[in-house]
C-alpha cells in the first residue's frame, strides 16, 4: 500500500481529540522500553529493536497469481502488496465487478468473507473499501481494495456474491459510501432517518443525531 | 310457570338476536347473533324435552358456524364491508313478503283459537310426557319407520360432500 507509510500523519491530527490526548501522556514513558523489548522476544519479529523508524511490513507482492492478474487486467491493478503474509490487491474502482467476477469464477475465490471500509480523511480518495475473499479450493485468502473519494460510487458486488448485500448496506450505513447497483441500499443497523455516518473519522464518538434521539426516544441525549 | 318464563326468555332472545343478526353491519357480530339465536332455539327444544334435538342443534351449529366464522374472517374485508350498502334494493319487496307471512301466522293463531282440536297450543304437554327417552325415540323412528328417507338424505349429503371435494381438487 503506497499510502501506508505516509499515513501515520492523519492519526496525529486525530490524537488532538479529547479522549485520546491523555493516553500518550500516561503511557508513553513506560511504553517505549516495553515496546523495545517486545519485538526482541518473539522469534517471528524481524523488526529492529528501536521502535521509532517504523517497521515496513508492507512489501510488494509479486508472485505467479499477481502476474496472471496483471496480464489480465493490466492497469486496473493499482497495487499488489503483502502485509504480514496476507495478500492485498488494490484495484480500480470502476472495474471492481468485473474483477470480482473473474476472481470468483477463474481464481475460485468463491466466498466473500467480509466487506468493510476504512476512512482516511486526509487522503485524496478518503475511503478504502476492503473485501476479504476466501477460496475453498485453494484454502487461501485475498484482500481486495478499492479507493473511493467522498462523492464516488463504488460498484456493488451483490451480483457476484449475494452475501455482500448486508455488508454493503452496513458500510453505507456507517460510512455513507454509495454502492451503485445495490438492490436495496438503505441503513441496516441505524434507524433509517439517522443523520450522519458514525464510522467516518470526522464523526466524534460523543456525537449523535440528537434531533432523532429527541424525536423518537423522547430523551435529551442517548449518551 | 317456570316453563312459561323460560319459553319467553328463550323466544325473546331468539327473536331479538335474529333481528340483530340481520341488522348488524359487522359480519362477525352478525355471526355471533346467529349463534345466540340458534342456542336460544336449542333452549326451547330442551324445554320441550327434546334433548336430542337440543344437543344436535348445538353440535351441528358449533361446527357449522365455526366454518362460517373462518370464512367470514378470512374472506370478508370488514373495513370494506362497513362502507357498503347494508340492504339490497328489494327491501320493499322483502317487507311486503314478511308482512304477508306475519299475517298468515296471525290468522293461524286466530283460527286455532276458534276451532278447538286444531292448532298449536296442545303440543307442549304431549312432548313432555310421551317421549321420555328422546334419543332412542329419534333413533327408532329414523332407522325404523323412516329408513328409506334417511338413507336417501345420507346419500344426498355424501354426493354433496364428494362434489365439494372434487371441486376443491380441480381448483388446486
Amino acid at each position, binding site marked *: 500500500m503506497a499510502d501506508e507509510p505516509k499515513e501515520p500523519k492523519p492519526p496525529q491530527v486525530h490524537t488532538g481529540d479529547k479522549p485520546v490526548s491523555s493516553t500518550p501522556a500516561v503511557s508513553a514513558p513506560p511504553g517505549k522500553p516495553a515496546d523495545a523489548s517486545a519485538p526482541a522476544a518473539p522469534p517471528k519479529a524481524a523488526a529492529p529493536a528501536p521502535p521509532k523508524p517504523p517497521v515496513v511490513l508492507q512489501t510488494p507482492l509479486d508472485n505467479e497469481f499477481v502476474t496472471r492478474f496483471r496480464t489480465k487486467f493490466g492497469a486496473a491493478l493499482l497495487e499488489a502488496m503483502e502485509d504480514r503474509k496476507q495478500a492485498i490487491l488494490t484495484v480500480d474502482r470502476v472495474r471492481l465487478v468485473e474483477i470480482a467476477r473473474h476472481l470468483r469464477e477463474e481464481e475460485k475465490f468463491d466466498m466473500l468473507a467480509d466487506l468493510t471500509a476504512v476512512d482516511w480523511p486526509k487522503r485524496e480518495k478518503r475511503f478504502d473499501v476492503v473485501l476479504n475473499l476466501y477460496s475453498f479450493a485453494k484454502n487461501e485468502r485475498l484482500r481486495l481494495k478499492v479507493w473511493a473519494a467522498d462523492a464516488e460510487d463504488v460498484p456493488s458486488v451483490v451480483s457476484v456474491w449475494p452475501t455482500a448485500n448486508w455488508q454493503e448496506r452496513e458500510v453505507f450505513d456507517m460510512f455513507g459510501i454509495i454502492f451503485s447497483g445495490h438492490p436495496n441500499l438503505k441503513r441496516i443497523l441505524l434507524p433509517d432517518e439517522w443523520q450522519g455516518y458514525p464510522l467516518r473519522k470526522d464523526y466524534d464518538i460523543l456525537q449523535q443525531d440528537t434531533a432523532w434521539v429527541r424525536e423518537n426516544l423522547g430523551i435529551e441525549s442517548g449518551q | 310457570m317456570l316453563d312459561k318464563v323460560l319459553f319467553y326468555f328463550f323466544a325473546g332472545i331468539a327473536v331479538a338476536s335474529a333481528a340483530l343478526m340481520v341488522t348488524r353491519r359487522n359480519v*362477525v357480530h352478525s355471526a355471533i347473533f346467529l349463534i345466540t339465536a340458534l342456542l336460544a332455539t336449542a333452549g326451547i327444544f330442551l324445554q320441550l324435552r327434546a*334433548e336430542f334435538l337440543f*344437543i344436535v342443534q348445538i353440535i351441528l351449529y358449533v*361446527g357449522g358456524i365455526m*366454518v362460517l366464522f*373462518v370464512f367470514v*374472517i378470512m374472506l370478508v374485508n370488514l373495513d370494506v364491508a362497513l362502507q357498503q350498502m347494508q340492504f339490497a334494493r328489494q327491501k320493499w319487496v322483502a317487507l311486503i313478503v314478511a308482512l304477508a307471512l306475519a299475517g298468515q301466522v296471525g290468522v293461524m293463531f286466530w283460527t286455532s283459537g276458534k276451532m278447538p282440536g286444531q292448532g298449536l297450543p296442545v303440543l307442549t304437554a304431549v312432548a313432555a310426557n310421551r317421549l*321420555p327417552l328422546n334419543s332412542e325415540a329419534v333413533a327408532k323412528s329414523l332407522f325404523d319407520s323412516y329408513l328409506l328417507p334417511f338413507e336417501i338424505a345420507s346419500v344426498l349429503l355424501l354426493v354433496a360432500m364428494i362434489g365439494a371435494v372434487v371441486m*376443491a381438487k380441480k381448483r388446486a
Partner: protein
Amino acid sequence: MNATLQATLEFLKLYWAPLLCGVAVVAILPLIVGYIVLVERKIMADMQARLGPMRVGPHGLLQPIADAVKLLIKEDIIPEHADKLVFWLAPVLSVGAGLLSLAGLAIGPAFQIAQDINIGILFVVGISALGIFGIVLGGWASNSHYSLMGALRSSAQLVSYETAAGMALVSALLFTGTLNVKSIVEAQSKEGIWFVLLAPVAFFTYLVASIAETNRAPFDLPEAESELVAGYMTEFSGFRWSLYFLAEYTNMIVVASVATTLFLGGWLRPFAGVSWLNFLDFVPPLVLIAIGAYCVLRVTKQPTRVQQLFMLAVAGLCFVVALVLAAPVVLPVIKPSLREAVAPFYAGIHGGFWFIFKVSLYIYFFMWLRFTIPRYRFDQLMRLGWHFLIPLSIINVLLVGVALIAGAYFQLHGWGLLLVTTPAAILALVAAFLILAIEKQHDARQEQTAPSDFYAG
C-alpha cells in the same frame, strides 16, 4: 307477587341440589385447576431436573393462591382497536362452556349435577365444544394477527378432531346402546370389563383427538408460544387470561372424565366384579395415609413455623380423607351387620376416589406428553387428523360393529367379547399401518409438486 314467590320456592325445592352443585363447581373448580397447574409444574420440574415452585408455602403448596391473587390484581388491558364487547364476552363464553359441560358428568353413582340426562355423554361433548367460540371470538376481537392466526388454527383443529373423537365415542357407545353416563358405567360393571380393552383403537383415537381438542402439547398450536406468542390469548391479561386458562384446564378435566366414563370404567374399582380382589378397596385409604405420613415426615424439614404448621395441616387433611375412605370398608369388617348400611357410602366415596384417580392419570399422561415431545406443525397436525385419525376411527366403528354382531351371534359376554373385539382391533391396526404406508407413498410422489394449503382441507 305472591305467586312469583311461590313459584320461586317451588323451583328451589325442585332444583336445590343441582343448583348447589353448580355453585360448588363454580366456586371450587378454580381452586382445583390451580392445584392441577401446581402439580403440572411440579411434575415438569421433576422431569427437568429441578424443583419447581418452592417459595410460597411448603413445597410451593400455596403457589396457586398466590398466582390467583396476582392474576386478579393485574392490570386489565384491552387493546386499542379491539372489539370491546366481544373481547369481554369471549373468555366468559369459553369458561362457561367448560363449566356447563361438567354438569353432565357423573363422578360417582351419586354425584351428578344434571341427574340422568338422557343425552348424557353427548351433552358433555357438545357443550364443551361450544368453548371454541370463546377462543375464536377472542382471537378475532383482539385485533392482532397472532391472535387471529391462533383462532383460525384453533377452529380448524377443532373441526378436524371433533370428527375423530366423535367416531371414537361411537365405537364405545356401540357396546352400551345408551348415551346416559350412568348407564354406560353400569354397562361396564355388568360386562365386568372396561371398554378400553374391548375398543383399544377407539381409546387411542379418542386420546389423541382429546389432546388436540384441548389444545395441549404436542397439538397446542393455537397458543404455540414460540410461533404465535400466545396465540388467541396474546392480547389478554390478568383476569381474562386466567379465565382462558381455567377453561383450558376445565376442558382437560372434561375430556379426561369422558374418557374415564366411556373407556376406563368410570367410578368402578379395577376388577370391581372379582370378589377375591376386594382387598383393593383398602388401597385408597392406604395411599392417602402414605401421603399424609410423608407430609408429617417432611415437617421437620420446613424452614419456618408457619410452613411446618401448614404441612401438618396438609397431613391432617390427608388423614381425614383417609378416614372417610376407610370407614365404609373397615366398618363391615368389624361389624358385618353394618355392610348394608354403608353400601351407598362405599359406592359414593370410593367411586369418587377411583373416578378422580383415573381422571388424574389421564391428565398426568397429557402432562407427560407435553414435557417430552416437540410440537407438531400445523400442516402435520391437519394431516394426522384428516389422513390418519378420521379414516382409522371410521374403519374402527365398522369393525367394532361387525365384532358386536359376531359377539351377539356367538352369545359372548364380558371377557368373552375379547374373542371378537381383539381381531377387530388387530384389523384396525393393520388398516392404520396401511393408511400410513399409503400416506408415505403419496408423500414421495408429491415431493416435487407445489405444497397444498391445509386450510382448504
